[in-house]
């Protein structure tokens, strides 16, 4: 579905992505994990051309994303929903208006239809009562959920999540995990999740990749990832208390 072909990205003299190649399959929940500064968000931004590769190419099906511009890029981006790390809600609009924005701007739906869709998106993320509030009046977790509602309100095929659970309490984190999984199961949405939170990855991912020094040093199912013998992966697992013995409860606890 999305294909990275030998993607290299440099900022100045720093090589962030180094000849990265991989492919995402339709309907999967693909987690990219790794230490801070490993290039996880950079990878995500390449999928929608918020960043362009220094060399190599990124494809959506048979269309090269990094060669698209103007109308074609707009059209390609309509396949995606994007939950930003900061939720990126427009501060002068209410939560409801934020969610309605892509519908009002990009569709010809009537106000009644828009209101209906906004209401059901708010219900899906458990924010039925927050529609009239401004982003500054709700908590960080609620902002993330509102951002998620905005990302899915136009029924995208692929949703990209940039650190969806960072800075949230464990309860809210699990709510977000459940939402990601629900969207995948109920609507068949393909998800790419960038996270530090291995617990979340083991709960929701169908495949996990670990990025280090611009390359995937491990890529596989949660079971394969947990059994990895790569020293960096082991270190990452141990640092979060997700050692080989601890993995089974995580996998069986899947929502």
């Amino acid at each position, binding site marked *: 579905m999305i294909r990275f072909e030998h993607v290299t990205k440099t900022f*100045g003299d720093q090589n962030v992505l180094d000849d990265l190649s991989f492919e995402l399959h339709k309907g999967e929940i693909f987690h990219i994990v790794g230490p801070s500064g490993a290039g996880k968000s950079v990878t995500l931004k390449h999928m*929608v051309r918020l960043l362009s590769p220094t060399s190599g190419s990124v494809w959506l099906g048979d269309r090269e994303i990094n060669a698209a511009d103007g109308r074609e890029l707009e059209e390609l981006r309509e396949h995606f929903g994007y939950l930003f790390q900061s939720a990126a809600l427009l501060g002068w609009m209410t939560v409801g208006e934020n969610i309605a924005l892509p519908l009002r701007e990009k569709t010809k739906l009537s106000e009644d239809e828009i209101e209906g869709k906004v209401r059901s998106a708010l219900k899906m993320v458990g924010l039925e009562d927050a529609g009239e509030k401004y982003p500054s009046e709700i908590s960080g977790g609620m902002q993330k959920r509102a951002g998620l509602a905005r990302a899915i309100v136009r029924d995208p095929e692929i949703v990209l999540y940039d650190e969806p659970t960072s800075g949230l309490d464990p309860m809210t984190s699990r709510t977000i995990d459940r939402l990601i999984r629900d969207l995948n199961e109920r609507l068949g949405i393909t998800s790419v999740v960038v996270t530090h939170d291995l617990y979340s990855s083991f709960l929701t991912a169908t495949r996990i990749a670990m990025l280090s020094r611009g390359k995937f040093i491990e890529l596989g199912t949660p079971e394969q990832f947990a059994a990895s013998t790569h020293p960096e992966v082991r270190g990452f697992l141990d640092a979060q208390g997700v050692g080989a013995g601890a993995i089974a409860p995580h996998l069986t606890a899947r929502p």
Partner: protein
Amino acid sequence: MITREPTPVTGPLSALAHAFGEIGRAGILAFQSVLLLPVTLFRWRSRRELVSQMYQAGIKSLPIISVVALFTGMILALQVGLELRRYNQEIYIGSAVMVSLLREMGPFMTGIVLTACVGSSMAAQLGTMTVNEEIAALEMMAINPVRFLMAPRMGAMLFMTPLLSFYTCVLGVIGGGVVGFTQLSVPWRQYIKTAVDFADTRDLYVGLLKALVFAVIITTVACYEGFTTTRGAVGVGQATRRSVISSLLLILMTGYIITRMFYDL
């Protein structure tokens, strides 16, 4: 595509190329926002934003513009009047105040006030939106930030700046009249007569043209700086500062160029 990576500057030649690139991109931004104005006028949601921006740029600037205009006229009248009184010609202060306000000081002072009040606020708002990834979020929703954010601001400034410039001239002339009447003993009737007799319609048109050009400069510089902000809160501060300085310098230079184009030596 508004969201773009900052290009590294590695030497003098690269800095020059970077500067030309910035001017070019700002020019394209200005052109796009003017082209998208009809869309802003035809969509009711955009019209609502346009009206809101008119209020921000026009009505909210009125108190400060009024004070600046009144005192500009008063200073002009006092300075010119003191000189003319040495030759017993102080009755002509009306013409001096009117001509200098229409041709130069009206649009110039309006430009300065709008740069400080409106341009800085635009740069700070868009800069904050950029560092908070709100602009990237708009692009991800396939909403063109130039149409959604810049075009209504451009429309509001193009509409309000000439109006405010004319208002500055009127209030400045009144301020000059007050000084003439109270401190130089020039009768009101005489002051207004010389003011109207010496003013040419061309002076008014040139002043209004300047106001329109200043509106484009202020909006373009502010939006460009806002859209290209990087590095968080510090970056927003720097973008706002750069926006004010660049606009003021460009207003000063284009003001001279337009005057030179329309008035022979």
